[in-house]
């Protein structure tokens, strides 16, 4: 069984996953290393994030893909001793420049987490939270409705906006979290294994939703599910864990390319091994 035949089965005939070649670069990582204290978790990552495209980060566990994702909106700042080397730019601005406020960064680069984490508040208040803290008071109802519609959740919850967000099913909770994230109109949405806690049907809904959202937003998704990356993303970054000569493990970006290329004709042997299941 050659690698090519097995890979082709991974990709459904999905035209929407074709990258738009003219897309602008919204974010650019240049030689980014992430440290926790003295430990270098990820080493030397260089890749672009293109506008209105879905970029997937895949790789075996411990390869640092989530770590890189969290450095994109400075969520790593919240961990004691975490710091980065290299530069990450957003619209050509260095995100880690001294005058940059992480709060402003996170306002524009939203995030959806692995486990659905709605606040223990009503559905309405969950979505309104980000609007309220940002001082947006006009047409709150309309904005909440729009966010819920855009998250493909409105029809399911319109009659019970005042019930707790925690009363929804796992998939609905995750879409609520997406609604909450898009309500504040960020430019980029980071998704950290958003479907790993969901069943296949709920996963399918979120994947469809991601296609819709990519018209308005730029999406970066970390996933351990290669089929998912193949189905939804335009670009794929393959990470792996390497052991250096001092026997320390580091995450490392092996290859970044169009998703189609990565899954049919990867440049690197390690990528091919991973996606054909010979590794990881």
């Amino acid at each position, binding site marked *: 069984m050659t690698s090519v035949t097995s890979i082709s089965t991974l990709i459904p005939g999905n035209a929407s996953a074709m990258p738009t070649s003219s897309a602008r670069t919204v974010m650019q990582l240049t030689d980014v290393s992430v440290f926790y204290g003295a430990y270098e978790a990820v080493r030397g990552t260089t890749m672009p994030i293109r506008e209105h495209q879905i970029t997937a980060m895949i790789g075996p566990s411990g390869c640092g893909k989530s770590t890189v994702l969290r450095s994109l909106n400075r969520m790593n700042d919240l961990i004691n001793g975490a710091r980065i080397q290299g530069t990450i730019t957003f619209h050509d601005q260095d*995100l880690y420049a001294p005058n940059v406020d992480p709060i402003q960064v996170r306002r524009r680069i939203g995030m959806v987490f692995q486990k659905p984490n709605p606040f223990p508040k009503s559905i309405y208040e969950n979505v309104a939270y980000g609007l309220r803290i940002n001082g947006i008071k006009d047409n709150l109802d309309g904005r909440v409705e729009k966010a819920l519609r855009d998250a493909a959740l409105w029809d399911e919850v319109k009659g019970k906006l005042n019930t707790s967000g925690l009363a929804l099913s796992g998939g609905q909770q995750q879409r609520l979290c997406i609604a909450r994230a898009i309500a504040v109109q960020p430019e980029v949405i980071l998704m950290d294994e958003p479907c790993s806690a969901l069943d296949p049907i709920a996963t399918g809904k979120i994947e469809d939703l991601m296609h819709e959202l990519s018209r308005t937003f730029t999406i970066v998704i970390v996933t351990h599910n290669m089929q998912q990356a193949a189905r939804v993303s335009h670009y794929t970054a393959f990470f792996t864990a390497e052991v250096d000569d001092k026997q320390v493990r580091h995450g490392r970006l092996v290859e970044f390319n169009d998703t189609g290329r990565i899954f049919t004709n990867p440049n690197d042997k390690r990528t091919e091994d991973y996606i054909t299941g010979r590794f990881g």
Partner: protein
Amino acid sequence: MTTATAPAKRSAATPDLSRAALPLRRRAIDLTARLLMVLAVLAAGVPLLLVIYHVLAKGVGIVDLDFLTADIPVRARVAGPGMGPAVVGTLIITGAAALLSIPLGVLGAVYLNEYGKQSLLARVIRTMADVMTGVPSVVMGLFILVVWVLAVGEQTGFAAALALACLMLPVIIRSSEEMLRLVPDELRQASAALGARRWRTTVSVVLPAAISGITSGAMLAIARAAGETAPIVVVAGTVTWTNWNLFEGNNTTLTAQIFKNAVEPFEAAHGRAWGAALTLMMIVLVFTILARFIAGRFAIKNR
């Protein structure tokens, strides 16, 4: 990238990410909240430092060997030492209370963690032990007054020890149970696999494994008990000479003497109260540090 941070280059597409772009109101509220938190720490910390300063400043000149050993002047107005009887009283009353409460408390904790676990009785005892820590010490004094002092017909040091033991008991039970819970189950299973009975496992394996933690908790309970005043005043009476006998005659402690001398109108009495306060805080400090030291060793051994 060098041009990016220049403000002139910013357009709608290059958002201003600086702190200054955050609305003033949000920044102000955030800053105020942080300031208030720091202020709260100072609001508790500054008075604490003042207490320590005053006790030191007013007590250091008074406490010497004579102060620690001489009898208490019968007339409060008389200047000069000492607090000997109160030092002795504090040590023997607290010591007796520890002897009474620690074995009982540890055994109670063994029941809760090794036998009772989540049974109804164990949960009731746990809750009631928590509740008992909240019983005012003066009520405990009244209780011992009724069941012991009225029965014996005399206020004694032992009555005070009983009252302190009652106050220490729930503290020791809860802290010891906490420590027993930290003992890994593998130890118990290993011992049981060798054919040891439950009580043997508990006495020779579980308790030794938790002993430093239990000791540390007991030290803290002793420190707390040494600072109790109300039950002493109610059930121990007062003396001006050293009474080594817990079972006969009144007794006194440093706390009771501080209480008594603080409200006297005489400078000499106030001086002795400050001296007693310094002595008491030293005793409490010794036990607290001892507890920390022992707990610290335990933590290292655990790793």
